[in-house]
């Protein structure tokens, strides 16, 4: 069996597990980050590691091929390593701390393919020394946030360091959430009980495809147009080069704020040459007075994980049947063993970057601001993971060009429209889903929508 990288904590847990099951040997392979050609070839050849540590959203692309084992049935059973009466002795699921986000990791086919072992979240890191020098404070709302950035810019600093990937991913999703908050209840057609708690009104690909055919997410949709205008206006406060090495600019105090994830804490606390204090806050809400499509609800979070463990088809290559495979049972057992609170602490807390997602395993104190941020709800879309990778590729590239003045707004929206059309057609064809089934649900919400405004105009 193989898991991510051979950390000390993980190595300890693995060797204890090997002692429990002397017939088991655990090996670790460095699977290079984001290398699809590696995964695709290895999985197609049924020789991938039994357990993978990959972003589950990347796995969704391939679930219909039977490359991954759905874990729902195991999660609903007790974790055998937990003593009776403790959390997890009834259902493995109960052990997970950030329930809503963890359950939100279900694939579009509603099945759960991963164990969400820990959490990461994004936040705005800021340089307290610079803030103090310029008399600035953490922003209360969006206009305030922009005013701070303007003052930083006037002081010849880069106001906000942000990566272009983050904008296509986090930036788009939170801005969309802010501007669709008023009408989301009227356009969310399939409600998913599993996700309701943290991701109310999550829009899946079929809903997006359906809404697209109704004129949403096109030039005719004022909220969609406004989403990108808002990002574009914000862009003037980011570095000239969006691929900049953010951390370099932040530690050398050329940038005053940085939108990054909890993993950046690790780097910042260890820098011996760091000459300033830093803090973290989350994006402030956009009030109606600033944008007429906003409703001023608190900004939602992205909700991500650093370690998501999936079980692959290699795990049952002993019998080629998941029902009878001993090896698969052992792989699941390893995951269950890893999620014991003491083991989780050992593994996750070794690095100052992740927050344990197991009840009873406490995060490092430096990460507590992110624990607070994680109490927020999660944004209702994941544009980057909704469709196929071709959609992503074109969307990310064109957004980047648009933000950097390589495309006009109208050209960009045309690209988006073509891209969305191809993507929704492909996804409908590939998964063989009938969009007309959503028509009645759409009609059912007509009354609700009458109370709302700001929908796409007629052609």
């Amino acid at each position: 069996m193989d898991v991510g990288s051979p950390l000390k904590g993980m190595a300890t847990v693995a060797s204890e597990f090997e002692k429990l099951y002397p017939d088991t040997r655990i090996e670790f392979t460095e699977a290079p980050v984001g290398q699809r050609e590696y995964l695709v070839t290895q999985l197609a050849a049924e020789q991938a590691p039994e357990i993978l540590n990959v972003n589950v959203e990347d796995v969704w692309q391939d679930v219909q091929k039977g490359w991954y084992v759905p874990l729902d049935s195991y999660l609903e059973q007790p974790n055998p390593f937990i003593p009776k009466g403790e959390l997890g002795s009834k259902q493995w699921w109960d052990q997970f701390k950030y329930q809503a986000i963890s359950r939100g990791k279900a694939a579009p086919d509603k099945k759960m393919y991963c164990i969400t072992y820990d959490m990461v979240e994004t936040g705005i890191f800021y340089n307290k020394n610079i803030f103090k020098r310029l008399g600035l404070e953490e922003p209360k709302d969006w206009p305030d946030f922009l005013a701070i950035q303007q003052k930083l810019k006037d002081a010849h600093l880069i106001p906000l360091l942000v990566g272009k990937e983050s904008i296509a991913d986090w930036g788009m999703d939170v801005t969309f959430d802010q501007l669709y908050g008023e009408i989301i209840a009227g356009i969310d057609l399939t409600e998913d009980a599993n996700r309701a708690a943290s991701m109310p009104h999550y829009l899946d690909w079929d809903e997006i495809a359906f809404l697209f055919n109704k004129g949403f997410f096109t030039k005719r949709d004022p909220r969609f147009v406004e989403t990108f205008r808002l990002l574009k206006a914000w862009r003037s406060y980011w570095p000239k080069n969006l691929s900049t090495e953010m951390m370099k600019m932040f530690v050398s105090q050329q940038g005053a704020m940085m939108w990054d994830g909890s993993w950046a804490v690790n780097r910042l606390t260890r820098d011996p040459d760091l000459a300033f204090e830093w803090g973290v806050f989350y994006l402030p809400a956009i009030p109606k007075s600033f944008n007429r499509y906003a409703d001023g609800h608190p900004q939602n979070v992205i909700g991500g994980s650093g370690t998501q463990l999936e079980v692959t088809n290699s795990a049952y290559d002993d019998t080629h049947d998941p029902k009878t495979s001993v090896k698969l049972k052992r792989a699941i057992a390893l995951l269950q063993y890893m999620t014991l609170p003491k083991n989780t602490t050992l593994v996750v807390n070794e690095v100052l970057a992740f927050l344990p997602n197991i009840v009873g395993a406490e995060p490092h104190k430096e990460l507590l601001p992110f624990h607070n941020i994680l109490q927020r709800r999660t944004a209702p879309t994941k544009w980057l993971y909704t469709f196929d990778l071709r959609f992503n590729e074109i969307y990310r590239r064109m957004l980047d060009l648009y933000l950097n003045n390589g495309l006009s707004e109208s050209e960009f929206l045309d690209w988006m429209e073509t891209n969305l059309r191809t993507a929704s057609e492909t996804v409908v064809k590939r998964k063989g889903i009938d969009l007309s089934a959503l028509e009645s649900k759409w009609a059912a919400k007509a009354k609700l929508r009458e109370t709302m405004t700001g929908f796409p105009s007629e052609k």
Partner: protein
Amino acid sequence: MRHRRAQFGLHFLLISILALTLMPFVFVINNSLRTSSEMDHSFFGLPKAAVSGVKFTASKVTAGTETFEVPASNDRDAKLERLGYGDAMKRIFTQLAQGYAYAWEVLRPYMLNTIFVCGVTVVGVVLVGSVSAYVFSLCQFKGRKVLFMAVLAFMMIPGVLTLVPSFLWVKKLGLLNSHWVLILPYIAGGQIFAIFLFKSFFDGLPGEMFESARMDGAGHFKLYWGLVMPLSKSVIAVVAIVNILGTWNNFLWPFITNSDAKYHVVSSGLYLMGRSNVSANYGTMFAAYVLASIPLLVLFLYATKPFMSGVTSGAFKA
């Protein structure tokens, strides 16, 4: 006088071009001795460990015996430690060598694999290539030209086009996770250019030489082994070096076919390092680049002369 000035001008020009060409490598060597946080704070600058030596991060990762303690996030210096001047000076050497020690620890087994694979491949390519080139050049038979063109046409197939089919195919042949999965396709691909080079060289050999040898009753084997090959030492050097360079640099194929770390080669090892957590530690990465270049540098020290005379023997033309 005019000549002297012209010569001086030429030297000046060549040295400037050379300086520009080699400049990036100077940066690499310098930066291989610096830590990530040093590089974050300034781009230019000498290795701090060598210059000051007052502040230090404790190196958690040294060339240990079993595993490497590499935190999954980015940097491997997990704890901060401040040392007195004396202790710091003692650490200087270790600190300077730290990136190298780690990079070497990772690359060493890959290095041996690479040398083995390169060695067998190059012998195969030279043998197969020269025999075929001999046939194409010195034997008269029908369809010779067409066959030769057919061989050359294989050079035009884009490598990635056949990546997946080749992978599934060698899997079917049961070659995955072995040295042969590299060696055989490398010989198959590498021989083409070798045939081309050998043939141009053989074509240039004086025909009378063969005539007289044949008069003496020499067969094809004797001609090939006794006459042609000894004359071809310099071309062999060229073929060998061009081939080794190609093999040494190829990363995608070994990376995909040999998932077992036992069979990793330097290029895929470097690539893995670049994609893994180590990459955030630039110093180690740079050290790895330097280390990965050394075997070829050594090879060049020994092979430069025949290589140059080979290239200058005029095989490189169309």
